[in-house]
């Protein structure tokens, strides 16, 4: 009984800290310059991306080494459609495409891997290959994707019930980013606490045991891959108008590696962990590369080493906080 109470108390404490953090991010435009707001806005898009990877890696235990494939496909879908459809309701159509196309990629990938028993390092290698292929395609078809120069995203005006929202306005898109991040986090929490998430945690723990209780673990993993892909695609679609262009870097190896680092640093399987990792690193690297220059990369490397050595489960990856997600 006392135990249950302390778990509950920790959950409330966690929620309170999270609430304060969100409030802080929401109030940032009051005191921060528009440069830092744009940096923090991109960091929010990356946070959604990290959350997407954590749903796959942290919850179902399957590591994707090419998750930028989903982010990038989302960004390119959004970019291409807004470019060709003009304004009006185009951003909404583009947003749906940025959600559906990566989800379909996830389903296809899951079908060819999980249903044939491909998991672990082999799955990681296959996802890496997919990301590399996509980044090659993005480079090699300049008439479609703009090649190495990339696509420039036009200034978009989003019609909403409350009036028009100008997405080229740094603060406006910042709040769109914050809203998407909060919604994604809530959806992530709901999903993980639902029997679906519990089944994924169980299958990650012991796949044969889950299967012999009746779970079609390949289907569960494919579903979470599609879901994670869709969320990564949304993150890409959010990033595109913030950066105002999309180039092959958004599908490539570097971003795929970075997102793994964010999640590992923040704490795998904690949902908010990866988001914290993304916000911290994306913001710090922008801030400190200005002041420290190349020394920053070294600093980041040392920071990572320290975390891996002394806190292998990540900054937030304690069992107590994991409970926030896992406990029913």
């Amino acid at each position: 009984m006392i135990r249950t109470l302390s778990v509950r108390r920790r959950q409330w404490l966690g929620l309170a800290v999270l609430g304060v953090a969100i409030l802080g991010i929401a109030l940032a435009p009051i005191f921060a310059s528009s440069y830092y707001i744009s940096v923090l806005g991109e960091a929010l898009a990356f946070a959604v991306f990290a959350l997407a990877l954590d749903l796959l890696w942290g919850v179902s235990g399957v590591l994707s080494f090419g998750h930028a494939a989903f982010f990038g496909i989302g960004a390119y879908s959004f970019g291409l459609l807004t470019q060709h459809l003009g304004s009006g309701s185009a951003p909404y159509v583009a947003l749906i495409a940025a959600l559906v196309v990566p989800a379909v990629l996830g389903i296809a990938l899951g079908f060819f891997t999980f249903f044939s028993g491909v998991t672990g390092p082999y799955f990681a290698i296959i996802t890496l290959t997919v990301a590399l292929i996509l980044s090659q395609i993005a480079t090699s078809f300049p008439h479609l994707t703009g090649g190495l120069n990339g696509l420039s995203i036009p200034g978009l005006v989003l019609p909403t019930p409350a009036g028009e929202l100008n997405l080229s306005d740094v603060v406006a898109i910042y709040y769109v980013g914050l809203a998407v991040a909060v919604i994604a986090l809530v959806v992530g929490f709901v999903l993980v606490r639902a029997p679906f998430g519990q089944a994924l945690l169980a299958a990650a723990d012991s796949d044969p045991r889950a299967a012999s209780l009746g779970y079609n673990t390949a289907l569960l993993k494919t579903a979470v891959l599609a879901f994670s892909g869709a969320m990564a695609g949304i993150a890409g679609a959010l990033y595109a108008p913030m950066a105002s262009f999309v180039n092959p870097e958004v599908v490539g190896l570097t971003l795929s590696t970075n997102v793994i680092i964010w999640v590992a640093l923040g704490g795998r399987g904690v949902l908010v962990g990866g988001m914290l990792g993304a916000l911290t690193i994306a913001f710090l690297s922008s801030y400190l590369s200005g002041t420290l220059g190349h020394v920053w990369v070294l600093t980041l490397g040392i920071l990572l080493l320290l975390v891996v050595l002394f806190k292998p489960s990540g900054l937030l990856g304690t069992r107590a906080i994991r409970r926030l997600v896992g406990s029913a």
Partner: protein
Amino acid sequence: MPSGASSAQPSSATAAPAQPLLVATALTCRFGGVLALNQLDLNIQSGELLGIIGPNGAGKSTLFNVITGHVRPTSGRLDFRGQDITGMSPYRVARLGIVRKYQVPTVFQGLSVWQNLAVAANGRSSFPALFMRPAGIREKIARLLDLLHLSARADDEAGTLSHGERQWLEIGMVLANDPPLLLLDEPTAGMTTRETRETEALLKDLAKGHTVVVIEHDIRFIREVARRVIVMHRGRILADGVIADIERNETVRDVYLGRSA
């Protein structure tokens, strides 16, 4: 020598409805040069509590592995409720209603005891049901926790349980799943005498609503719970009948009972 003893069931005096739930026909399973199952025939009646005994390597666990789809038989056929399930994948066999407890207690170590039971309870439900917790599940789990004496540990990670508690949790998971046919592989292994007694009571209670097959080394336990007993030896059924007959059987005494006495 009674080999394919599918019809030899001399005094199944208890009034079990004689409708075969599971039928194995000439089941053979070869690992390299070893015949783990050799032309095995078996009938499991609906509602019975069947004990399987036999020396190590007799093929008891292999039989379970083949039934649950973990191992594909070299030849032979399995029918569950009249449906051919030979070589079906483990999750499909489970969904049809055959769920097992492993020889080495296998629970989800990183999940809490409560979560283990909740996951088990949902195992055979439909995909959309995975997004809404079914009604009444909390009460069901509370009852199970009480039955398993694990209420105080509901929030603890299953990895922190003792061996006996893990055995019980896994039995509880199979119960939560509530399948028509339960396969229990050595449910009392590593338990204290008191725990074994309690497991006996649990199993007898369980047998009222389910068909149960138990592999055990503990003859005393089998004598206590099982009405019908099968003795396996070298991938075959050596004897099949009530425990009193089995214990009088000379061949069985030579192969199995004699050795341990």
